[in-house]
């Protein structure tokens, strides 16, 4: 497969997943502001959200005030924000258009429809939950079309690899929002408010019910963290995402043979091995935020290896 094709497929997956993350993050923010927490009011949640998505500077270049209205513009509609839902959907569709020959008509159709609907929407038209629903619905359609109709060839693995790495990154960032929200007032840990916030995180990841199925009623920090980091059954957990990325890299290696570089596979294998030996107390001892930061950096390194292994064509 052409390196450029592979790269576009990989980014198609990443951008679709990233669109969903942006809308999830926005929904987390909107829900958290529904409850008062700090004396300073509601500003803090949006700020933490920007920090977790590393978009604080960009935001303040275009917007003065931190308000839900501005945040909606920024995270959902703003094409100057490369991580907004609109930017990601546009980019995913552009990648798709460039590699039309590698996509089934169903996948193209789903991408195209998603973008057309997004393009037709205006800020303020829907509330946060409806927006998130809309984005999640389109994301599912695209993902479903990929799973249901694409040949299980290298193109498929590149797309799914993009999804898996982006998902790992995204879950880590959503979790990190929680860390930032809590940061100013340590005494909230373990309080009703604390638990409420964990619940919001679960909801935002559409994992509210599954958490209860897996762990019963009690929502506590260590259980939610365990669920989202180390539970191999949770579809968006870090460990699941890493294992999926590894699986797709393994499939590529089997397909291409050992002669083709496999630094990404080796790196993902090392990360998966480390995860298999981790327990949640260790993570809290290390510090959740530090753990997540390291993790996000490591995912970035694996993505760079993917780039070097496959997308240069070594000419």
């Amino acid at each position: 497969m052409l390196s450029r094709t592979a790269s576009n497929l990989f980014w198609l997956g990443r951008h679709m997943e990233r669109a969903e993350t942006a809308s999830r993050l926005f929904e987390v923010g909107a829900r958290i502001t529904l409850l008062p927490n700090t004396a300073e009011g509601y500003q803090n949640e949006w700020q933490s959200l920007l920090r977790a998505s590393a978009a604080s500077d960009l935001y303040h270049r275009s917007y003065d005030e931190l308000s839900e209205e501005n945040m909606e513009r920024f995270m959902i509609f703003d094409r100057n924000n490369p991580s907004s839902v609109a930017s990601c959907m546009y980019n995913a569709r552009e990648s798709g258009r460039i590699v039309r020959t590698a996509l089934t008509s169903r996948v193209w159709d789903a991408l195209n429809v998603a973008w057309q609907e997004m393009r037709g929407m205006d800020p303020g038209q829907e509330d946060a939950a409806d927006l998130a629903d809309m984005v999640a619905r389109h994301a599912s359609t695209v993902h479903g079309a990929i799973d249901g109709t694409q040949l299980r060839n290298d193109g498929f693995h590149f797309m799914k690899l993009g999804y898996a790495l982006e998902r790992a990154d995204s879950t880590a960032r959503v979790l990190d929002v929680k860390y930032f929200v809590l940061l100013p007032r340590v005494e909230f840990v373990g309080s009703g408010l604390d638990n409420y916030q964990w619940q919001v995180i679960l909801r935002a990841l559409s994992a509210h019910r599954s958490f209860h199925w897996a762990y019963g009623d009690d929502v506590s920090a260590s259980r939610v963290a365990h669920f989202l980091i180390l539970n191999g059954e949770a579809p968006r957990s870090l460990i699941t995402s890493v294992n999926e990325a590894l699986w797709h890299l393994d499939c590529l290696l089997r397909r291409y043979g050992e002669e083709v570089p496999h630094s990404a596979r080796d790196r993902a294998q090392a990360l998966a091995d480390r995860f298999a030996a981790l327990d949640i107390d260790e993570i809290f001892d290390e510090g959740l935020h530090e753990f997540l930061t390291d993790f996000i950096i490591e995912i970035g390194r694996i993505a760079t290896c993917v780039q070097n292994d496959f997308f240069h064509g070594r000419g």
Partner: protein
Amino acid sequence: MYYNEMFDGEQVREAYASLSDWVDHMPADFRQMKQAEAEALFRRIGITFAVYGEGGDPDRLIPFDMMPRVFTQNEWRRLERGIKQRAKALNAFLRDVYSRGEIVRAGRIPARLVYQNEAYEKAVVGFVPPRGVYSHIIGIDLVRTGRDDFFVLEDNCRTPSGVSYMLENREIMMRMFPELFRGNRIEPVDGYPELLRRTLESVAPKKCEGKPRVVILTPGHFNSAYYEHSFLANLMGIELVEGADLFVDGEFVFMRTTEGPKKVDVIYRRIDDAFIDPLTFRRDSMLGIPGLMDVYRSGGVSICSAPGAGVADDKAIYTFVPEMVRFYLGEEPILKNVDTWTLWKDEDYKYVMDNLPDLVVKEVHGSGGYGMLVGPRSTKEEIEKFRKLIEKNPNNYIAQPTLSLSTCPTFVEEGIAPRHVDLRPFCLCGERIELVPGGLTRVALKEGSLVVNSSQGGGVKDTWVLSE
């Protein structure tokens, strides 16, 4: 006064009988429903004509007219012979002017028109591409003015586009009106991609061993014909590449793949000469492949169409194509040229300037319906403005009489009405010269308009060739 393709006097021609019946019994709302359905299908499969930099919808649809244009078997056989003859002569001409230049020595074509032509490529003089073929896909634009009167308007020897519309129009007609295809014996066009692939493989370079690897080279997804490029790559099962996907290493061209470099043997390029190799042509080109021309000249890769093929298809050379047929093939041309005045000849210049309001004047290198004057449809000011342009540079223009282009019944707002059409069949030249029975019919949707180019608001129709 215009020849209407559907009628012979008052009588509906046999070829159109069932279509005429079909239209007569079609309820108006059914037609609107089908039109909307067709549009949705086009939009859905993504067949759009991307026009960037002109504002408006970058993914514009070319209007599709559901009323087909029909040729009988006899009409088609004659066209086919004429097109193949012309394609053969054009390739012979190219081979000649890049070697001994016999036709120029014989005084049949002025040397200036050939050797000073912008498209004449000194870099390939003396090199003969595989099988002596320079132009592998030739789109010949034809118009009809009467029952037996067909004229060639233009030869496109470089990168003619529109073949995807020929294929998609048929696909959509078959999907929407299967009953029409049961009732008429219509020759299929869907063999085109296979034929194109065989043609390209048949001109693999000397150094190629085994099955040739063929790719399509596109300028990228911002190009207006990008859809066509990806469509053809898809149907032929080959890679669609951009310049940056290819690189030269030693004697060969390679493409960058996830499994490392893979050798490429035949490049069907859809970008202009000036951009294919920054080392030989335009240095600022980001679209091309540095060193490509060296590999080409040493027989490591084939480029279709060959660099320099453009010298055969500009409007100045056009006037000499009948001469080429006689000179190289010793035959009389089957298809006629449109009478053409060349403004660098004194007597022609005088005639044209005296009769501007009755003529069509075109730039020698213009295309897409730009840079032309349609005398009878222009205002006095427009004509005077053009007169000044011609005075400044007469070499740059040719003139032709306003042709009475035939019309074909077309669905319009009010119902069905005659609209002017032309035809572009696609002739393939490799080991053999072949074409599928059909082509792209373009239709001027505005009443009275003679300009059918898609960039000027023209539409397209399915083109039928009936079998015996």
